[in-house]
């Protein structure tokens, strides 16, 4: 069996809204394991907490309990629930990438610059970063005429390609996918699926949500059912 990259144990998220003085559990007691070169899929009804699980692992949401043990490239094991902000940020830049449902980029920034951004944070020159962004956009299949335009002017599907390219310009160790094909046409979806298969073959660990059950069946080695505040693993 391939190496464990992420072990989630009894992860919990409880939201508290102070204004209305209400609290609710997005999910509770989630445990799962993601291995190198395999795709673990999260399935469940809308509102079951699938996206919230991904966001807690990425620390866009603060988890309310449990552990997320991440095995880094250097062989360190980091609990993403308690890691410092700076450590979390470093891991996000180098090892853990996230394709969210919506793309947030700076308003006037070109697609190429938006994709290159994670690299500009590292040590390479801005020119090299832009060259790598170009290569990534080409691989993902965004039409060349769009490369130097701001993604705010793109269609939903085109934005999603930029979003994917942004996540993949750094070779991630763990890739979190939140419905990356939701707004794509069949051709782009095929490209995305090919890309995911390629990443798997290269040993990237993937955890994610797909809208389309057929795609999920085709891609996932393992499916985790999420719902009712309780989750259980299914072989």
């Amino acid at each position, binding site marked *: 069996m391939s190496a464990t990259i992420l072990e989630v144990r009894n992860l919990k998220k409880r939201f508290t809204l102070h204004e209305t003085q209400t609290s609710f559990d997005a999910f509770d007691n989630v445990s799962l394991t993601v291995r190198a070169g395999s795709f673990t899929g999260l399935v469940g009804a809308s509102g079951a907490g699938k996206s919230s699980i991904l966001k807690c692992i990425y620390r866009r949401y603060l988890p309310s309990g449990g552990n997320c043990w991440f095995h880094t490239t250097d062989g360190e094991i980091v609990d993403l629930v308690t890691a410092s902000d700076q450590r*979390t940020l470093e891991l996000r830049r180098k090892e853990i990438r996230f394709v969210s449902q919506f793309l947030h980029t700076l308003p006037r920034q070109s697609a190429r610059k938006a994709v290159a951004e994670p690299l500009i944070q590292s040590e390479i020159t801005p020119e090299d970063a832009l060259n790598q962004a170009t290569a990534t956009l080409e691989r993902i299949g965004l039409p060349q005429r769009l490369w130097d335009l701001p993604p705010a002017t793109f269609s939903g599907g085109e934005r999603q390609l930029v979003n994917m390219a942004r996540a993949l310009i750094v070779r991630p160790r763990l890739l979190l996918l939140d419905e990356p094909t939701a707004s794509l046409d069949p051709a782009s979806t095929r490209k995305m699926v090919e890309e995911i298969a390629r990443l798997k073959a290269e040993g990237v660990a993937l955890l994610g949500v797909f809208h389309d059950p057929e795609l999920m069946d085709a891609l996932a080695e393992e499916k985790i059912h999420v719902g009712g505040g309780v989750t259980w693993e299914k072989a």
Partner: protein
Amino acid sequence: MTVFETQNLTRFYGVRCPRCLEKTGAAAGTNICPDCGTVVALNNVNLRVPKGEILGVIGESGSGKTTLLRYLYGVDFGATGSALYRNPSGEMIELGELDPAQRRRLRDREFGIVFQNPHQGLNFRISAGGNIAERVLVSGERNYGNIRERATLLLDRTGVPTRRMDESPAGFSGGMQQRVQIARALATEPCVLFLDEVTTSLDLSVQAKILDLILELHQRTRLSILLVTHDIGVARMLASHCIVMRYGQVVETGLMDQILEDPQHAYTQELIGASL
């Protein structure tokens, strides 16, 4: 790695009494002591400014943002508690132990600042180029040609037409004045940049261009930046880390996207809710 670390940093304005701290703060809903009228501008502030990152300090007017910035920058001396600064050679320096001349040296050589009001950051009686030359001179450069060359380069990099470098900034537009301030702040290649509401008084399109410039400079130089703003949009665009202040206290710290998507404190929830 951090560039600043504070512990229980506290700043009083007034006579102060033994109950000032407990009677003020976010939970008390005021920063004015009801017993003695002292303003507690900073109330046990603990924070870390990560090296090479942009830390956004957000909060409403009077929450202590600018007081914090003024103390770390070194134009305010009256705070108690600890504030450590890591200089470029890696030594940790307690700011409270420095005398005014030493703090001035830090401001002149290792820090840069951009104020909301250009009158505070620029000398309008001399030219735009002269404003930059002043800073370069302080850093020890004496050769006229070199100084002028450096001023030209900085103005060019910050988008000020260099043919106007011999004019007073008084005749410049608001956005252009901010650019000159930024060029001036960068003149000595500082390792920390303090930005105090730098886009607040500009109209939206100019604001956007200044933000682009700051972001580009940060990406190229990896400066550590302390960004004080009450505009969450500005913080969202620039900062990777964030602290939220209210009534002199830090009520929440976190990564910027986490603060925006999953704010924990009642006040932060109100603030984020109001901005969207």
